[in-house]
């Protein structure tokens, strides 16, 4: 197994709940409560879980955007906790992040060139000043954007293209680890695959390791080598993609997998359905013992008293990490190995040529007011967004969303 680049060691993040005039702390939201894992060089670790399980907080902790309450992040053997601001900055060069929402994570007042080139301002020694523009153009080219669009503003791009800009910014400093927090969940179905393919290509070319945080279990299965399943701030199960999906041993993983619809109507009514009752309990007051015991059909007295440890438990084929007293494998989805099959290239391809209507405008789907007027080129007039009626921007935003450049 390749060397470990990043290691989370018992990471804990509690947010205080303050009440009253004196802002006294009356409790804690236990967003992340003791999570450990290793990330190896060049691999993808998928983190899945429902909203509120702490997966995004975990991503922010790995980046040191949040200070952990306890525990540490170790990068290439160096403990990040207690590192000086100078060291932190140097470490950040090697760990970068791509955010979920390509509409809010790019500054609407900066050009694409400024956004992608901003890391070079902070880490001035990476690329000499004179070569920055060229480097930014190379990066744009690498993520499948037209390098000539370096002077455009984010609102002139579609959602998928903006996510490419976010990725270009993420890889600008040649990081070793890229934390991706729901990188494709805001994208349309047909665009999602383009971005997933791009991320796989970049991983091959640059040897990146990904921490891929997402709630879509199908996407995570596709992209990940190993997968961790989180529930209420703790890791419920962790293993190779195959182990977690084909031989899950934790009841929560099993329930989660059974709830994911599979695009195959012939499986209707034939799949193992585990319907969980109720909602995820509040992380401010997680259940005692095993956190899942309030919704678990296997729960016994021991589950509410004793917290099960994340340890190797038998899965029928071998063993992988699972935090359940009564771990036993259960086949939820019949996995077919289709690694040999190639999709019919007559219908799909990533290399579709330019769309003729490249002179079309892009809306300010999320970009706020019109910002392109400073630009002299023809994009300025196109940038004027049609004003989507405020009530249902969801569908109308797409009216204004428009191809402008394309992966080449």
């Amino acid at each position, binding site marked *: 197994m390749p060397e470990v680049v990043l290691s989370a060691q018992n990471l804990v993040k509690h947010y205080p709940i303050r009440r009253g005039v004196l802002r006294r702390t009356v409790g804690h939201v236990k967003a992340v409560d003791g999570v450990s894992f290793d990330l190896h060089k060049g691999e993808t670790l998928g983190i899945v879980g*429902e909203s509120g399980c702490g997966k995004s907080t975990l991503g922010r902790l790995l980046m040191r955007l949040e200070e952990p309450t306890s525990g540490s992040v170790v990068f290439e053997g160096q403990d990040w906790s207690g590192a000086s601001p100078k060291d932190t900055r140097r470490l950040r060069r090697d760990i970068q992040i791509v955010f979920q929402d390509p509409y809010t994570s790019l500054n609407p007042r900066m050009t694409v060139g400024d956004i992608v080139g901003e890391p070079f301002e902070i880490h001035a020694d990476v690329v000499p000043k004179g070569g920055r523009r060229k480097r930014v153009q190379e990066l744009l080219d690498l993520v499948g954007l037209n390098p000539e669009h370096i002077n455009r503003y984010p609102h002139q791009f*579609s959602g998928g293209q903006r996510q490419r800009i976010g990725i270009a910014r993420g890889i600008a400093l040649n990081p070793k680890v890229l934390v991706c927090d729901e990188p494709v969940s805001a994208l*349309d*179905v*047909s*665009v*999602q*695959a*383009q971005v*997933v393919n791009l991320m796989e290509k970049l991983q091959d070319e640059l040897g990146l390791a990904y921490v891929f945080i997402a*709630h879509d*279990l*199908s996407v995570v299965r*596709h992209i990940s080598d190993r997968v961790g399943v989180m529930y209420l701030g703790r890791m419920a199960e962790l293993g190779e*993609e*195959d182990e977690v999906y*084909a031989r899950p041993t934790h009841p929560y993983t099993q329930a989660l997998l059974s*709830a*994911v*619809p599979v*695009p*195959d*109507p012939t*499986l*209707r009514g034939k799949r193992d359905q585990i*319907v969980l009752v109720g*909602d*995820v309990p509040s992380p401010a007051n997680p259940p005692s013992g095993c956190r899942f015991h309030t919704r678990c059909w296997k729960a016994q007295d021991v589950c509410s008293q004793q917290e099960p440890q994340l340890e190797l438990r038998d899965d029928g084929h071998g063993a992988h990490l699972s935090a359940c007293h009564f771990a036993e494998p259960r086949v939820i*989805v019949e*996995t*077919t*190995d289709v*690694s040999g099959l*190639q*999709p019919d290239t*007559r*219908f*799909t*391809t*990533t290399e*579709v040529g330019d*769309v*003729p*209507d490249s002179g*079309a405008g892009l809306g300010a789907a999320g970009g706020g007011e019109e910002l392109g007027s400073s630009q002299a080129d023809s994009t300025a007039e196109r940038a004027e967004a*049609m*004003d989507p*009626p405020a*009530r*249902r921007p*969801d*569908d*109308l*935003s*797409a*009216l204004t*969303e*428009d*191809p402008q450049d*394309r992966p080449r």
Partner: protein
Amino acid sequence: MTVQDTTRTDTGAIRYEPQDGVLLEVEDLYVEFHTADGVATAINGVSFELRQGESLAILGESGSGKSVTAQAIMGILDMPPAVIPQGHIRYCGHDLLTMDEEQRRKTRGPEVSMIFQDALSSLNPVFPVGWQIAEMFRIHRGMNKSDALDQAIRLMERVQIPAARERVKAYPHQFSGGMRQRIMIAMAIALDPAVLIADEPTTALDVTVQAQIMSLLEELQEERQMGLILITHDLGVVADVADRIAVMYAGRLVEKAEVHELYRSPAHPYTRGLLESIPRLDQKGQTLAAIGGLPPNLMRIPPGCPFNPRCRMAQDVCRRDLPALREVAPGRLSACHFAEEVIDA
């Protein structure tokens, strides 16, 4: 066409009876948005019908016109900017588009109702949920407050909201996302509608909650024999629920088929591309074949087939002639010049 043989009861209300099992018929519908920058054609000649007890899924990406279709049926489009230059939407033979507003309002709720994607912004934050559900009974049925509230509690129990009697006075923000969606469903089915339109009902929810909501919807549909129009982009949800599927692209229907047929052998390259570009939970090591490019701007839909710039099968004819939606196999419609080749592939 004008309003036809309107049967009015003594009180002047229209009685609605499905004709040959057909509840809703959309015929050659166009919706345009007139903006300062030009006209965006959001729906471009869409026709379909919905039968009693049937689940029809309208599948499409954002901007394909699927939500606008739903809003046009409900009559809740903002006009202007929206304009319906032509087309018919018939409910039990009565054209909703030519109906006066008074009559139309009487159809919203008791006849056709809708569930929205975002329950939090669709519910009124300053009224208790019970009050909002009861409003349906007060306004449409003329019930008094306490009877209406009793009905609301019964409905909340029906949609499996725990401790309904205690929570009837709670406000929307005090519920979780899944519970809020249940409240929306309770409001939508309150008056026993014949047609229920669900616009991305589970998109904002976690998978485990999504499964709960979808099974509740299926159960209710079965129980009340409603016609269900499910609007979604999720090929997985569609495969679980729908009887028939209509695929939309750039404001047009590009394919219509029974669910098994569509998944087994799609008849349009766009549908085919979608199916091959999504990762599947039950497949390991698959290669994703992404559809290149982006959906077109609705103000500048390319000539010919709107999908041609992204289609690898595109020939000259595709760039020139708009393919009509035609029957390519029994019960199967496709708007592709080469539909037969796509089906056989």
